[in-house]
């Protein structure tokens, strides 16, 4: 099996199946009327965390890169969130602890160079993104947000800088896809209950490592391109504007996914669009190639 096929099978199909197998059976158990909180909320962060870790272990084996330990830190934080209440202070505390844990395990990967501003990017980025997506996930349960995040993760593969890290994002996207399918069952779900804490750190740290690796060789793409796919799911807040929020789900949901896809496409264009050479004539190009003949 060649390298790309391996990545597709073990980095894409496998985490999708793992997430599906863990999440779906429990999703068919109807929610009791007296069940205030989803008592099986833990199934989502567990499924996504296991999907990522198993896929990467099968694909790359030991030793694990810090990115995978960051996924484990996120999964641990996510599981804690799935068992605790959504009270603001409890959730805020868990978000801070999760972001700090992610930063701690990623420290070694970003501290290599002496630029201090980079030291806290994994933690601060995770905290900011979690803090802004979490309320959205609470307002809009169901598959809309996880699919949007999966789209962002899929686009961020372009900026991971390597197949090794790109496959992590593929696993995140596939795992979220497997989880999202359970949205069509009897038990509604929200990725606010821990799933975000697994996915978001990956959306922050993988493009960050991709940028730092490329920047080290003075060969980075436009910095904005690394940011956009991770931030694109935030555009779903736009659909909370009353005029758009009133639209039926059949209009709102596809439009929100389309917006995320357009933003990710723009990021790819910013990064990879050919440089404008319209100002150069054919003679100029010949001059560059052959000098003064």
């Amino acid at each position, binding site marked *: 099996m060649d*390298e790309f096929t391996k990545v597709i099978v073990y980095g894409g199909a496998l985490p999708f199946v793992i997430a599906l197998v863990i999440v779906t059976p429990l999703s068919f158990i109807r929610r009791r009327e007296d069940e205030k909180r989803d008592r099986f909320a833990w199934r989502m962060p567990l499924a996504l965390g296991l999907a990522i870790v198993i896929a990467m272990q099968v694909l790359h084996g030991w030793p694990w890169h810090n990115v995978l330990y960051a996924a484990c830190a996120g999964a641990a934080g996510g599981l804690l969130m799935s068992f605790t209440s959504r009270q603001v202070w409890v959730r805020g505390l868990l978000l801070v602890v999760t972001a700090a844990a992610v930063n701690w395990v990623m420290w070694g990967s970003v501290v290599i160079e002496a630029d201090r501003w980079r030291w806290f990017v994994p933690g601060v980025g995770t905290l900011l993104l979690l803090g802004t997506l979490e309320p959205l996930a609470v307002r809009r349960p169901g598959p809309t947000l996880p699919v949007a995040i999966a789209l962002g993760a899929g686009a961020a593969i372009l900026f991971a*800088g390597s197949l090794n*890290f790109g496959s992590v994002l593929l696993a995140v996207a596939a795992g979220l896809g497997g989880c999202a399918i359970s949205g069509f069952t009897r038990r509604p779900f929200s990725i606010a209950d821990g799933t975000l804490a697994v996915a978001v750190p990956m959306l922050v740290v993988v493009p960050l490592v991709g940028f730092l*690796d490329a920047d080290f060789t003075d*060969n980075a793409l436009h910095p904005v391109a690394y940011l956009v796919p991770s931030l694109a799911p935030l555009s779903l807040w736009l659909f909370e504007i009353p005029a758009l929020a009133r639209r039926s789900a059949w209009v709102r949901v596809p439009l929100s996914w389309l917006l995320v896809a357009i933003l990710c496409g723009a990021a790819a264009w910013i990064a990879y669009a050919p440089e404008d050479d319209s100002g150069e004539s054919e003679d100029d190009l010949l001059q560059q190639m052959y000098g003064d003949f």
Partner: protein
Amino acid sequence: MKRRIAAALMIGGLTLAAAVGLAPRETAPVPHVPATADDFFTIDKAHSVLLYHLRHFGVSNFYGRVNMPTGSFLIDDADLVGSYLEVSCELKNMDTGNDGRDRFITGADFFSAREYPTASFKSTSIRKIGEGTYEADGAFTMHGITNDVTVRIEQFTRKLTERFGLRCGFEAHVTLSRSEFGMPKFVEEGTLGDDVTIIASIEGVQLPDE
């Protein structure tokens, strides 16, 4: 008559002066004097380069280069025990002729250049195998892994230049298995070969004492 003699002398003198002035002045033979430990050569990174090639799809040799290697060496027939070769390069100077490929090859799939920013060779012994030809056993470190290799040194040449010090150059060849250095990507399906031949074209300089 005196004027003609004076003119002839003047023309002859000017011709001689011009001949001396225009003659190549940087080819003086170097008398061999046994080297001391202070006689090492520093690699002139502006005139040295590491080239490498490996098979691509099994049909062609792909060539890349790493610019500006650094290090020092001392190779002396009279004292091969004291001879040594140390070459190092920064992988951020990798140049494959394509920005995207440079990003890819220095990234996590291959060199992980940010984590392992340099590659180096340090000899442990050098032996002469012919005129201007040597073999150096030593440790090659790359991607955080060190393996023993034997480097073949060819075209070893010394020359004293008037303005640019004593110069010494050679070409070193070695073939490595990249999977033994923890970089087996695309070997299995034969997209990229496992064997990588490195050709180091090295020029060293021994600047005169101040």
